[in-house]
């Protein structure tokens, strides 16, 4: 623990206290030496106790009068001198002590001590967030509803104050610090075994890279989730072994492609993100006709990749000549000009285009592009990028067919990466599957489970699957399909399907139901409430497991029977 500043501050108390003691000592000594007169007129000397008593109330300006006897003039002379000396000494000491209490360094040291205490007492897994912004705010909110603890490191103190006002379900410890100092990560508990992940979603790639690197060096076991919108940074991050690098524009490209060519995969992805298991017509893009895209920045590039892969006809409009040149090197489908300019839009062929995408990084330019395009071609499908979450109401009022909020994608992705690791891997794996595969899975899910399937992640460990673990250890392997069986009648199957199974480093997408389960397997299921209920019972309860395995109630004890009948 480093509290050098605390010691420096205590050191600063030395002089005021020295002054206080010396002034008191001189006054007391003087009073005991100067002869006085008692009420009978005899000469007397004040004792040290008398003098200490008198000086104590004199110096603090309480003033009870002359004690024990009325003073003589020589005594009064000394007292009037010592009043000024001790009162000044006293005020100086008290003033410095109070000033120290309000000292910024001291209070920040105390805040760090308090923060450290909170981190030390954290017994559950926690996530460290670097920077508190709208994105992390939403993620922390979602996580705290799941009961996952977060810790925040923020450079700007006013944001920490703001955080205190946002009431979360859990208390979120926040620390004021700059991650350029590796000590800050240590204080935030990065080396604690409970620390599961570091999240850095700053819009500044450089800062994210920095956070990721120091986090990985300080604790190689920790999962690092960072945003990187430039490819060079993403490459850097991959070389140092960061698992999860999030590029929101890549997500957008992927989603565009899926909306065009593999809608069922898009539906599955949205379902994993806790959205309903169906597609709105608004979620789909016109699969024919020409696309006009305004803005060839990071988002434009991503969209171009998606459109190219999907084999669509497209045309870009860009204001920056440098970017136009850059694109022209490989592709001539770009014109220079302002996207909201009517003439440019007409030249680009908005009249018979099927879709316009406003992908600039300014919300109001995007809105005006959409307005202008719609005036020329009222039936055009409109897609706009919304940069600022606060502009929600304006975008709603504009009745745009599809609004892309970059931040929302990041929030969802980060949330599942932390709270639903299996779903995250599942998503990674399905994105390489074709449209037919996705259609098949979506159909199968609807057929087996119904219109509204739920998801559940579970792990074959003693905590979640006591009975199953015992059976595997003592009796023998259990195939996966046993978990599908109905608790009421073992011949019937519940509405449940395993989507993904992780065994150590091995991964199985749509594992075969005859697969034998092993200890430590992690499985992602899709199913309904009833099926998940049964699943939990079968995994935990020895008697339930026995029944679904053997098809008969075990004849062990009365309590077992009672349990089954009930």
């Amino acid at each position, binding site marked *: 623990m480093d509290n050098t500043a605390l010691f420096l501050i205590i050191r600063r108390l030395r002089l005021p206290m020295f002054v206080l003691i010396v002034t008191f*000592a001189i006054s007391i000594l003087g009073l005991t030496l100067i002869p006085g007169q008692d009420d009978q007129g005899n000469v007397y000397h004040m*004792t*040290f106790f008398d003098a200490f008593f008198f000086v104590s109330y004199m110096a603090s300006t309480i003033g009870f009068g002359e004690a024990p006897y009325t003073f003589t003039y020589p005594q009064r002379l000394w007292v009037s001198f010592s009043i000024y000396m001790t009162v000044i000494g006293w005020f100086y000491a008290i003033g410095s002590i109070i000033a120290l209490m309000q000292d910024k360094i001291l209070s920040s040291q105390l805040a760090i001590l308090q923060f450290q205490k909170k981190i030390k007492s954290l017994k559950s897994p926690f996530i460290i967030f670097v920077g508190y912004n709208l994105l992390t705010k939403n993620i922390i909110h979602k996580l705290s509803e799941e009961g996952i603890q977060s810790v925040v490191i923020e450079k700007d103190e006013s944001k920490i104050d703001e955080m205190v006002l946002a009431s979360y379900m859990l208390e979120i410890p926040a620390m004021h610090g700059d991650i350029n100092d590796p000590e800050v990560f240590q204080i935030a508990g990065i080396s604690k075994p409970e620390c599961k992940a570091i999240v850095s979603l700053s819009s500044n790639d450089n800062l994210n890279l920095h956070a990721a690197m120091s986090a990985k060096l300080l604790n190689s076991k920790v999962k690092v989730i960072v945003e990187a919108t430039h490819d060079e940074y993403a490459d850097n991050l991959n070389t140092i072994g960061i698992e999860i690098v999030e590029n929101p524009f890549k997500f957008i490209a992927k989603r565009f492609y899926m909306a065009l060519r593999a809608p069922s995969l898009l539906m599955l992805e949205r379902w994993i993100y806790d959205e309903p298991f169906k597609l709105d017509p608004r979620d789909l893009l016109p699969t024919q006709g020409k696309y006009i895209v305004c803005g060839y920045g990071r988002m434009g590039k991503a969209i171009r990749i998606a459109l190219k892969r999907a084999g669509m006809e497209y045309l870009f409009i860009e204001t920056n000549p440098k970017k136009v040149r850059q694109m022209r090197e490989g592709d001539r489908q770009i014109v220079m000009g302002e996207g909201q300019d009517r003439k440019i839009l007409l030249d680009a062929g908005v009249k018979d285009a099927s879709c316009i995408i406003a992908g600039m990084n300014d919300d109001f330019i995007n809105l005006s592009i959409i307005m202008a395009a719609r005036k020329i071609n009222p039936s055009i499908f409109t897609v706009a990028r919304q940069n600022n979450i606060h502009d929600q109401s304006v975008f709603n009022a504009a009745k745009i067919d599809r609004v892309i909020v970059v931040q929302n994608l990041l929030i969802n992705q980060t949330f599942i990466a932390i709270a639903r690791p299996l779903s995250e891997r599942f998503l990674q794996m399905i994105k390489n599957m074709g449209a037919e595969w996705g259609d098949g899975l979506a159909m199968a899910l609807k057929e087996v489970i119904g219109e509204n399937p739920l998801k559940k992640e579970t792990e074959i460990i003693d905590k979640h699957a006591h009975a199953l673990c015992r059976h595997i250890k003592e009796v023998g392997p259990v195939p996966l399909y046993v978990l599908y069986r109905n608790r009421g009648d073992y011949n019937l199957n519940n509405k449940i399907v395993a989507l993904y199974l992780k065994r150590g480093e091995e991964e199985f997408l749509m594992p075969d139901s005859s697969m034998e389960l092993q200890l430590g397997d992690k499985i992602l299921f899709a199913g309904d409430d009833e099926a998940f209920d049964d699943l939990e019972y079968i995994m935990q309860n020895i008697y339930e497991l026995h029944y679904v395995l053997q098809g008969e109630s075990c004849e062990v004890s009365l309590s077992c029977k009672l349990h089954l009948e009930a």
Partner: protein
Amino acid sequence: MNLSNVISGFFIILALTTNFGFFYGDPTILEEHSKYELFAAIIFNLIATIYKLGDKTQIGAVLLATSLVADIQLVASASVWALGAYVVGMNPEIVTAIISLSGGALAANIVSVVLFVGETIKSKR
């Protein structure tokens, strides 16, 4: 030469010497012990204590502890004196208590000085 070391060394030694000056003499006869010497011992011990505040090192912590022990014993000695003089009256028990309390403070001060000197010798210039 570090001036603050001179000052703190000065007060640490002075605390010991004034303490010894008060303690020296027949422990049953109060007249052999000057009240002014006790006063000086208390003041110098307090000053020595504040000069030991805020030292981060291990030796600094132990020095501060010895000084606090000496302070407590000397203040207790003065309090017993005031109690004897004003409340219960002087008797041989009170007198020996005053002197032996200051003797305890003397022991603490000796430890403090030994540590201080040891620390000085250990540091190579």
